[in-house]
């Protein structure tokens, strides 16, 4: 700690920080624009001016930009100095000289950093009396609206988009007071993290275009802390609602997981909640219909044995409620056999004690990264953003002697230039991270696994070596092995994306080889869905096992939880499965092929309409909270429905329904591997000064009028029995515990920039610790001692093509494609071939090829990916029209006469 004096008051502060972050950490209000806690200082906006004095007797001092000056022991400075104050206010007047007077119609109004800073500096009257500068706006695609006239040229957008996220199609053009931030010409912003611009931009230049479609001010939204549903990383989000529609997703800071940024799938995938195709009311097919839903269900439930099919996109609570309803032995994971095996393997590795699974944010500090068989940009996008930072780790460490502080972003970038730490990418086709990679391998999954085994062998000669590998590959493996061994924090990324168990085993083998006592290599696994890990931890058999069990009509009733089985297995298999039951109860929120088979269809709540817990890929249990009580009373959490069914079955009438906390308690009691889930968030009876935490900001408007079209008297607000949050604007106004923070707001800080008030230090972890509990999976798995099976090298087959699934950030996720914006960015179905295979078929790009896969026929246009090994074809994974392929797959390819 060093001692500094601010306006004559002494403070003990952390050394190595700049004055701006220090002041913010101390709770002092100092305005800024260009500085960003994740991106550091560049000194462009000149807003954070303070006075620094030579010593305690110096009364003159000099103005400095707080973001560009490090703290020094015995430093004297003043934030309130009149010159500094006047300069800050003048700076705002300069910015305002061209800023339009359009707050009232600006999407940013009410959560605008520029507004907040303007008020903070006291600038009120604009003396500039000349015409303002104006710009042409651009079309930037479905995610962002562009309004350049509002720009205050803080350069944050290009610094995030280009420098931080690696985007290529946004830049700053022109010069002097005409600088322009946009694309070279109108067009869709290509980077997968573009939506963060809406939060990075301190004013309304880049705003959320989907919010604009159903606009609501921040202060008018009912908000809740939530967890992203669209991949396995579990990024923390804030979801906002008004008038029964989900309006917006913004990043919720979690210092261990997503930090300040989320991907565009996570930000824009929410609109499935508002989909007109929602299941809106319980429906019972005529032949089962007893006239009354509850009677019908009661009679169905009483009728023989039930089988339960869980889901990796449903909460732990929902899966557990189903397991309890049907009984442990009749509960199955709703995922294919292959996927279940991969998941079980991954869990056993994660819990083996031989490797370390770093939290997402920690992967940014890996100094050597090996990615085996994953394309994180598409399968776990936020991880790709983290790996983009990881390649800077080594150069940043190397510059330790330069006296350049790490927060000095511009100087750091000038010094390290294009230096990169080692990142190796092994995937069948080019990935976006290849551009940062020190080396790449484009090979079949088998060969990627073999490459991994070879690396393991060069680290630990006891590990077996793959036979007949070519010398060049071995040389490369040896080199990587060498770098991994020298690394301080090596990281190996693999996962389920290619459905190849050997790749996972190879990753483990490398991790084992690198293990040195307490020091363990980092292993990050990408999983298919938001609760894949939670479901796998329940250790139930797979969907295919369920199919087998259902043969011969053992079960009268199947209960399918939030799962479209037609996306999990071939159509014929699923049809056959459904034929085995008299009753098919389906709980889901969107209509799909499985709901169309239901004899009883139950409208389930989405993540926005209910509470639950998800376990992410690092086994972090995180709670998401109900954002709003749906107007449609039929829409309820699956776990609530299932609990109710259980009561019917026992003959008790609903009335004594369980609350979420009871269910979690039972879950942990029944399955000790989930110990810790109960502390993922404070329980429902948590209060501060006897008060709940309001989901609505204190400026929430229209409370008395919002339902006046229904009845003029103000209805009682809905009661939340499952969480300490309230559906009102009344309640505790201070800072709630991190897992319960529904929005960021602090006096004078209306925009999301107020997050620093919630952090233990500016940019640091949230007060009271970052949310989520890492599950130790107590007593769950024994150490994986199975000897390594090294697969044979990939060989082209004469008759069939081997197929690899290629993940797509937009398209491969079941729910997000229901958002029109995301759907618009999804690829059309295609087949990718290398040049040799295309030549053999005499096909050129765009030709329609016919692919037959286990009875399914797809006519697909050809895309050439020359790096694909001969005999291997790539298909986009899980597009709505291409699901139900059992991976890994093979297919017969012909050129059609079309």
């Amino acid at each position, binding site marked *: 700690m060093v001692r500094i004096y601010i306006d004559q008051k002494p403070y003990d502060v952390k050394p190595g920080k700049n004055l701006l972050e220090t002041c913010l950490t101390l709770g002092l209000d100092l305005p800024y624009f260009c500085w960003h806690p994740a991106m550091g200082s560049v000194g462009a906006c000149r807003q954070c001016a303070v006075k620094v004095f030579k010593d305690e007797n110096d009364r003159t001092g000099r103005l400095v930009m707080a973001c560009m000056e490090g703290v020094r022991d015995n430093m004297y400075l003043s934030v309130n100095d009149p010159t500094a104050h006047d300069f800050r206010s003048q700076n705002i007047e300069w910015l305002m000289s061209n800023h339009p007077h359009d707050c009232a119609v600006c999407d940013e109004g009410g959560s605008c950093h520029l507004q907040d800073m303007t008020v903070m500096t006291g600038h009120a009257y604009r003396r500039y009396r000349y015409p303002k500068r104006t710009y042409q706006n651009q079309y930037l695609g479905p995610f962002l609206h562009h309004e350049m006239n509002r720009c205050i040229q803080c350069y944050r957008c290009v610094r995030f988009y280009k420098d931080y996220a690696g985007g290529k199609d946004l830049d700053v053009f022109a*010069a002097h007071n005409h600088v322009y931030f946009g694309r070279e010409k109108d067009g869709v912003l290509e980077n997968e993290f573009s939506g963060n611009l809406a939060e990075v931009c301190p004013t309304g230049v880049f705003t959320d275009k989907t919010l604009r479609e159903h606009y609501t001010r921040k202060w008018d939204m009912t908000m809740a802390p939530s967890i992203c549903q669209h991949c396995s990383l579990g990024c923390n989000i804030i979801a906002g609602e008004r008038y029964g529609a989900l309006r917006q997703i913004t990043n919720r800071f979690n210092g261990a997981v997503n930090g300040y940024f989320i991907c565009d799938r996570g930000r824009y995938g929410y609109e499935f909640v508002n989909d007109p195709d929602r299941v809106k009311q319980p429906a019972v097919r005529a032949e089962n219909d007893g006239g009354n839903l509850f009677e019908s269900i009661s009679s169905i439930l009483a009728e023989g044995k039930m089988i339960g099919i869980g889901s990796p996109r449903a909460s732990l609570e929902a899966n557990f409620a189903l397991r309890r309803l049907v009984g442990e032995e009749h509960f199955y994971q709703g995922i294919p056999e292959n996927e279940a095996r991969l998941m079980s393997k991954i869990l056993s590795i994660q819990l083996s004690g031989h490797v370390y699974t770093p939290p997402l944010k920690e992967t940014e500090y890996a100094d050597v990264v090996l990615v085996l068989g994953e394309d994180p940009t598409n399968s776990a996008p936020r991880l790709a953003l983290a790996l983009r930072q990881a390649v800077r780790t080594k150069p940043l460490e190397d510059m330790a002697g330069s006296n*350049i502080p790490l927060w000095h972003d511009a100087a750091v970038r000038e*010094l390290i230039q294009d230096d990169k730490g080692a990142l190796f990418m092994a995937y069948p086709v080019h990935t976006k991270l290849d551009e940062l990679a020190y080396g790449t391998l484009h090979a079949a999954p088998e060969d990627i696994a073999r490459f991994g085994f070879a690396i393991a062998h060069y680290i630990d000669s006891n590990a077996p070596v793959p036979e007949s590998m070519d010398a060049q590959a071995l040389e490369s493996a040896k080199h990587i092995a060498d770098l991994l061994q020298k690394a301080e924090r090596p990281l190996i990324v693999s996962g389920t994306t290619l459905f190849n168990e050997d790749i996972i085993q190879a990753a483990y083998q490398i991790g084992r080889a690198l293990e040195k006592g307490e020091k363990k290599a980092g292993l990050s696994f990408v999983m298919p869905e938001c609760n894949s890990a939670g479901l796998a931890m329940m250790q139930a058999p797979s969907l295919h096992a369920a199919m087998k069990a259902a043969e011969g009509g053992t079960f009268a009733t199947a209960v399918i939880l939030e799962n479209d089985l037609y996306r999990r297995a071939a159509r014929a298999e699923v049809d056959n499965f459904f034929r085995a039951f008299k009753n098919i109860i389906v709980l889901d929120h969107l209509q799909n092929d499985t709901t169309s088979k239901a004899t009883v269809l139950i409208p389930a709540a989405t993540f926005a309409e209910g509470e639950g817990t998800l376990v992410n890929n690092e086994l972090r249990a995180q709670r998401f909270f109900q954002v709003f009580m749906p107007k449609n009373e039929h829409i309820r959490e699956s776990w609530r429905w299932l609990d109710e069914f259980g009561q019917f079955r026992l003959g008790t009438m609903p009335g004594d329904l369980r609350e979420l906390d009871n269910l979690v308690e039972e879950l942990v009691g029944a399955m000790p591997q989930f110990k810790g889930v109960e502390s993922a968030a404070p329980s429902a009876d948590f209060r501060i000064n006897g008060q709940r935490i309001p989901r609505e900001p204190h400026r929430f408007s229209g409370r008395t009028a919002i339902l006046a079209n229904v009845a003029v008297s103000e209805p009682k607000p809905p009661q939340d029995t499952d969480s300490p949050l309230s559906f009102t604007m009344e309640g505790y106004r201070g800072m709630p515990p991190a897992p319960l923070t529904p929005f960021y707001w602090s006096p004078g800080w209306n925009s999301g920039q107020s997050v620093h008030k919630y952090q233990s230090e500016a940019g640091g972890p949230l007060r009271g610790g970052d949310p989520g509990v890492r599950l130790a999976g107590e007593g769950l798995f024994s150490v994986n001692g199975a000897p390594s099976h090294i697969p044979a090298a990939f060989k082209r087959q004469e008759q069939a093509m081997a197929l690899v699934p290629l993940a797509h950030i937009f398209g491969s996720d079941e729910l997000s494609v229901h958002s029109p914006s995301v759907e618009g960015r999804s690829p059309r179905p295609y087949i990718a071939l290398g040049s040799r295979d295309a030549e053999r078929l005499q096909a050129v790009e765009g030709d329609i090829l016919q692919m037959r896969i286990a009875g399914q026929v797809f006519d697909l246009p050809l895309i050439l990916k020359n790096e694909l090994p001969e005999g291997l074809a790539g298909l986009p994974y899980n597009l709505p029209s291409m699901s139900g392929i059992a991976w890994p797959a093979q297919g017969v390819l012909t050129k059609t006469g079309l």
Partner: protein
Amino acid sequence: METPLTQHISFDRPCYSLRDYEKNGGYQALRKALSLSPENITNIVQASDLKGRGGAGFNTGMKWSFVPMNGHYPVKYLIANADEMEPGTFKDRMLMEGNPHQLIEGMIISAFAIQANISYIFLRWAYKKAGRLLKHAMDEAYAAGYLGKNILGTGYNLEMYLHTGVGRYICGEETALLNALEGKRATPRAKPPFPQVSGLFGKPTIVNNVETLCNIPHIINNGPDWFKSLGKGNDAGTKIYGVSGRVKRPGLWELPMGVSMRELIDDCAGGMANGYGFRGALPGGASTDFLVKEHLDINLDYKSVAAAGSRLGTGTMIILDDHTCPVGFVHNLEHFFAQESCGWCTPCREGLPWTEKILLSIERGEGKPEDLDLLDMHTRFLGPGNTFCALAPGAMEPLQSALKYFREDFEKHIDQKKCPWR
């Protein structure tokens, strides 16, 4: 009176070829320098008290001494700043067109002193003739073994590249120049870190003005004491002084450092043109404060000009005569500065266009009394340290001094609602 810089320059004939330059003692300084240790050269230059001729006036040898010489930096750069874009300044052009080998020799010695193996000449785009001559001279120097590998058998290597900018004033700022050279936007960099430690491509780099570098061979040949003896008063060496504006003979002269303003205007430039009177002068380019009649007898060295409230800058003077409207004069300058702002920091990007608009409206007779307060505010808040680089503070120098010395002219515009000169 010795004129080392221009002794071989004559525009009555083509500039010296390598052979002619060698015949007249060219590259002797290089031969001598290569026999000295790099540190020794830096010490000599530091002892000579040569100050940067680009405008800032920092001791050149001291600047070099900040370059790490411990062998940890295999790549270092030397850059000649030939992006001469200061309005009223054309001295470097004369040096490059008049004797390109003098610059090249100075650069090789300087690069050797900091042990740089790569050097660049960052040349103003519009200097086509200088570019042609430099390219030719570089080819000659390469052919003669003064550039390239193993220079004169000493084992020292130096590559030299000619880089032409696209004509932005800000590229004269050494760190913006580095960014431009890297292919990035010509935005200045924050200092620290200084280029001597983290410069071009993050490597130790020295950027020196053309005139500064042209002095180096002569200092090596004749020693620091000789160089010091050239100056008249506070500063060492000679300086290329210039005068533009309504004088009888505008031009450039190599004179001892510290010549008086009156000598320069009356003796060299022949005094004011017939019918024109002297009102003031910007002594060293557009970004320096006005000096007026009362200053005519000051010596043009760094310290004396600073004491008079201005800066020697580039030493090339722009005269304001009594037939020219000072408001229009300053408006023209502010138009230039506003246009040349890189757009990086707020005060410069937004403040300069505002001052330009105010000055234009005053010049058009649309000014208001409170406009003068706004101009005063800008001169105060666009000062050094408040903006990211020195462009805006420089832009405020002619404005603040015009407001001081010619305030009644501004007031007349506002009172009469027109420009009294029109």
